[in-house]
């Protein structure tokens, strides 16, 4: 079975990335880092996209926020999409904006019917403005909120059904949430609509300095843990090949280290081979 295996792209890796040749290689970026009016940022991404498939992974759409989406942000996203022609677009079931305040994080909200309707409306708008199918990602959880009317898989399945978006399953987020709020990964995966999964994310996590293994942090700053790799291999066994990304956003090492991590993930799924998108 063939699939693709991508890496987070960082500007310091540009020269190496341009010269890289590997079956199934692609790169993912946060579009917010490239939404300049001009200059080297979008030009760099454009050049990369001429050599490798590029996916855009938004971190500030605030799909689960209480307010209308930022139209200027959407317009900039569309301009970047037109320029770079990404192979995939994704974002999170989370919020980050309230009024004039932006929090550089992915914040949780109670999964209520009202939130469901807002998220559906927001995703409809994103897909309409961008002209792309959005993949919606499950975030990491650190708090057990009150007021949920849906389980997370049920909520995501309903969003998929009503918007025709797809799902991005972040296996590290599943593991982190399982530890932090006792959301069992196996139950989650049994309930989620696996046919809707269009992409999988892997990443490293760290332990809280005070609470240790009882509070995991989705830090994206180290290799994928063995537990997450095992969860990923089991998911792959069940659902077949899906484009997979290895995220690394903190304490970013040389690209050679990311290559090693890529080889490690490939070794965890020997039944798969990797081809071009």
């Amino acid at each position, binding site marked *: 079975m063939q699939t693709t295996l991508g890496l987070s792209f960082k500007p310091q890796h540009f020269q190496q990335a341009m010269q890289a040749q590997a079956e199934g290689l692609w790169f993912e970026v946060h579009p917010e880092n490239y939404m300049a009016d001009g200059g*080297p940022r979008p030009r760099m991404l454009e050049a990369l996209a001429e050599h490798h498939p590029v996916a855009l992974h938004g*971190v500030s759409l605030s799909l689960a926020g209480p307010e209308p989406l930022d139209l200027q942000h959407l317009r900039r996203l569309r301009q970047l999409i037109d320029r770079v022609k990404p192979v995939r677009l994704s974002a999170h079931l989370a*919020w*980050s904006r309230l009024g004039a*305040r*932006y*929090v550089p994080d992915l*914040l949780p909200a109670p999964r209520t019917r009202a939130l469901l309707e807002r998220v559906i409306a927001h995703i409809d708008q994103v897909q309409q403005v961008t002209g792309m199918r959005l993949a919606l990602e499950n975030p990491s959880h*650190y708090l057990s909120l009150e007021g949920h009317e849906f389980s997370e898989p049920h909520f995501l399945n309903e969003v998929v059904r009503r918007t025709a978006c797809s799902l991005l399953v972040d296996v590290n987020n599943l593991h982190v949430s399982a530890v932090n709020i006792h959301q069992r990964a196996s139950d989650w995966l049994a309930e989620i609509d696996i046919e809707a999964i269009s992409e999988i994310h892997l990443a490293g996590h760290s332990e*809280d300095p005070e609470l240790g293994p009882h509070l995991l942090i989705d830090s994206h700053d180290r290799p994928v843990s063995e537990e997450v790799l095992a969860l990923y291999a089991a998911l792959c066994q069940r659902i077949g090949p899906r484009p997979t990304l290895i995220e690394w956003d903190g304490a970013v090492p040389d690209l050679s280290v990311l290559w090693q991590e890529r080889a490690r993930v490939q070794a965890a799924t020997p039944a798969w081979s990797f081809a071009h998108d």
Partner: protein
Amino acid sequence: MTSPSSFYTQFLTSIDGWHLLAGTDVEVGLVPAPAATAVYANTGLRAAIESLEANFLSVANWLGGPWFWPAATAFARAHPPQEGRLFLYGDGFPEFLASLEHAQLARYTSDLAWVDWMCMRAHAAGDHLPLTATRLATLSPDALPGLRLQVAPATHWKISPAYALVELWRSAHAGRTEIEIKPQEATGVLVTRPEDSVWVHEVPLTSLHLLDALAAGQSLGDAAAHASSQEAPGRPFDLQAALSALLENGALLMPPS
């Protein structure tokens, strides 16, 4: 049941409240946040601070971590980001540093921050074709006084205080902080991006006066008159020198053919 809007407001209050409890004054009524809320508080604050460190590199190098991080933290709490393009975060940081400068920071910090800010904006500005001296020379001399030249979107400028600020900025940006700061007459700091790289130049003050007038929509003739009026009494106005500094550094837009 908590209304949707109050949930979001309360959530932000809880993470901001953790900030306050962690280091400074405690507000009455705030409940200590659990460790999980601290994760959200730390992640957001750290991202803002790291963005300031990247966007104001000369300041971060000049002050060093033990001084820069508290200043950046104070700014991030008082003026949190407003959008996800963190490579543009930091409007108001130079002024904020100036307000702190006498209290605890080193001299020159706010000036360095202004240059960093101009570079940050130039880096992300729209692309353009710069006007060259060669192109200008093709125009009829009669047409020049009435010519309305536009400032390139990446061009930024500021009057330098009476010391070698550009030299200081270049050193601090490169991580060299043990330098002699030379007093000199006030000059102009000009930041341009004719292609992909951002450049910081020291230019005559008359070049900045010319830019001020051109940016206000004045014709080249009127702009030259304005720049001439700003010269010190007895100092001859050199339009060629003032304009050359702008043309050589790609500060102006190529007019449409």
